[in-house]
């Protein structure tokens, strides 16, 4: 069996096209069922996210596989009312590349933000649609398992998914380096503009000790506070916030610094906790740069965080060759498994042929043997055949990728066996 795939992803196709091709959950199952009924495809996996729609199918017939994918593409174009450009062509790829493709996708190597981990969950869920549609055959299932294992290995053995890649996440990464867990951290967000909203979105799902929003206009901040379960206050509460917070993220749009060195020094004299992290995301800056001179204060502005993001991005980029090595290794293991699977019918036939020959000869001697002796001899024949074949079949399986093309045919003709009928 071979794997073929059809790929429509963010690297080649614009969002206008991708959004037309993307499948909703219930559509995916219906599509896979149709694939089974109309094209007799028994093994398939559809990974459809905002950045990609990738269809993987398993088939014994190369021509049938490729033509099915071409037909699928035509149906998509017709039913979803779009036309893929001739150049670059939609990506229908062959067996080897298809296997590697799914592994790379799951590892995050093909993601828009390289190394992102969301794709692993999306690939995991994709199998639910395959099983609902009844196209979860053993080969595609094995490939899916391999892909998930590969993704897990890449994440645990390389830094491909490490470090924050947005300024807001970068601020949280620095906060974790200072305070350890975010659950110990009291956070105040000053300002209720777009930047603050983005910061609050990034804070969602992170359990902080407390969260408060301060803004000049309470009406504007009220909605944000409600959405994110935060406390609310006016800008006049800023001096108190400097005393009560561990992490203060500020972006007000004011033309002059809102937080002065004197203000921070005054707050520090009343503070009981550890260090204070001030993240200034304002442009022009909201915190007087002189604040950075104070020992207990860590001041970060947009440039500092951009540098952190850049460092993380570089670390991820540097990890690509290592991640690709893991992908190659896992793909090779899958290929070996697939090859060894090809040998099974021939090995079964060979074993059957030898057993038949042995038992036939034993049958000739039956009248000279008691029932007990015959049974013992029968067991002996099977044992001898097992012993003879065990090692050689094991070696065959292990080196299945190096076998000559016509090896199986020669094996079958040598022992006069019919693997097809055995299968």
């Amino acid at each position: 069996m071979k794997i073929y795939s059809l790929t429509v992803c963010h690297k080649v196709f614009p969002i206008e096209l991708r959004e037309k091709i993307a499948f909703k959950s219930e559509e995916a199952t219906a599509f896979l069922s149709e694939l089974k009924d109309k094209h007799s495809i028994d093994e398939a996996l559809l990974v459809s996210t905002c950045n990609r729609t990738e269809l993987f199918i398993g088939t014994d017939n190369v021509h049938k596989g490729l033509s099915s994918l071409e037909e699928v593409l035509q149906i998509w174009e017709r039913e979803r009312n779009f036309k893929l450009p001739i150049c670059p062509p939609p990506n229908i790829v062959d067996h080897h590349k298809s296997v590697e493709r799914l592994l790379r996708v799951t590892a995050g190597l093909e993601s828009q933000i390289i190394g992102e981990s969301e794709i692993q969950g999306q690939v995991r869920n994709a199998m639910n649609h395959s099983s609902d549609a009844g196209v979860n055959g053993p080969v595609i299932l094995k490939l899916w398992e391999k892909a998930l294992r590969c993704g897990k290995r890449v994440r645990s053995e390389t830094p491909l998914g490490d470090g924050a890649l947005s300024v807001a996440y970068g601020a949280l990464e620095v906060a974790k380096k200072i305070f350890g867990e975010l659950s110990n951290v009291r956070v105040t967000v000053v300002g209720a503009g777009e930047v603050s909203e983005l910061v609050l979105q990034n804070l969602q799902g992170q359990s902080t000790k407390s969260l408060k929003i301060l803004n000049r206009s309470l009406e504007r901040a009220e909605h944000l506070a409600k959405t994110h379960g935060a406390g609310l206050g006016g800008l006049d509460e800023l001096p108190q916030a400097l005393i009560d917070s561990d992490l203060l993220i500020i972006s007000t749009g004011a033309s002059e610094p809102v937080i002065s060195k004197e203000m921070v020094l005054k707050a520090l004299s009343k503070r009981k906790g550890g260090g204070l992290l001030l993240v200034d995301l304002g442009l022009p800056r909201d915190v007087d740069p002189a604040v950075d001179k104070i020992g207990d204060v860590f001041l970060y502005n947009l440039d500092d965080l951009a540098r952190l993001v850049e460092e993380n991005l570089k670390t991820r980029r540097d990890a690509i060759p290592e991640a690709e090595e893991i992908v190659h290794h896992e793909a090779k293991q899958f290929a070996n498994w697939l090859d060894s699977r090809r040998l099974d019918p021939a090995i079964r036939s060979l074993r059957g042929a030898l057993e038949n020959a042995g038992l036939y000869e034993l049958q000739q001697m039956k009248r000279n043997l008691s029932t007990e002796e015959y049974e013992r001899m029968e067991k002996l024949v099977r044992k001898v055949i097992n012993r003879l074949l065990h090692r050689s079949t094991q070696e065959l399986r292990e080196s299945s990728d190096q076998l000559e093309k016509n090896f199986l045919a020669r094996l079958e003709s040598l022992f006069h066996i019919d693997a097809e009928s055995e299968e």
Partner: protein
Amino acid sequence: MTPDSYGALTNVVVILLTVFYGSLITGELLSLRRSSGSIQEPGPNLIWLKLALLIHFGVVLIRGFEVGSCPVGSRWEAFSLLALLIAFLQWVLVATSKDRSTLLYGLSFAFVLQLGSAAFSLTYPGEEVPVLDSIRSLHAFSALLGLAGVSIAGIHGVLWTLLRRSIKKGHFGLLFNQLSSLESLSVLVKTATTISAITLTISVASAFILLDDTNRERSIGFESIATVSVWLIFMILALVPRSNNSVTVWRTNFSLVGFLAVLLVLGWISVNGFHAG
């Protein structure tokens, strides 16, 4: 008696222990490389560390039975015991805090000491050393455990200072990625400080008992004065609670002073031997 009755066997065991610690450091470095520098959770390397500690403890125990007291009579014995105690304390800190980002550094210092022990063992003349009674053994053991605590506090203090500097200056290099957090390191410094304060108190108390019946000139060497000074500093450090950043700066600076004192004491022992011997 000559505490080197095993001769070549002793050398082999001490060298093997050094190799074992060296392998642990290599394993830790490889783990760091694989995970781009941030390993906070316990991994398979900790099983090897436990095994190394168990073997090292067994060796020290056998040696103790052989000489009939705490084995600190010669330089190689004192260095080896100190290496064991530092590795042990480092393991205790990892096990209690679940933060193994500093394991590499504690183990490296234990390795250096074990290397020193191996060097002293190879050149050991096998001279006679007095057998220590139980109070002297307790005094020597608690003093070494105290020095181990001071060393661990010092190492963590240095790391805290370096991490703080890299966060302050926005240097997102190796230390920023590898070390856990200022908070976690500060807890580890405080824990190590408290352990060393308690054990040094036991050592100083037992020293006062011994002073009545010993030759004072022989007992009060440079290392005794240094150790008592470190004990005083660490008692204060242990009593001051963890409050704000400035207190931690102050604590880490003094733990660094303590660590330097330990290095001086080790230098002194290397040249003059352990006064308990």
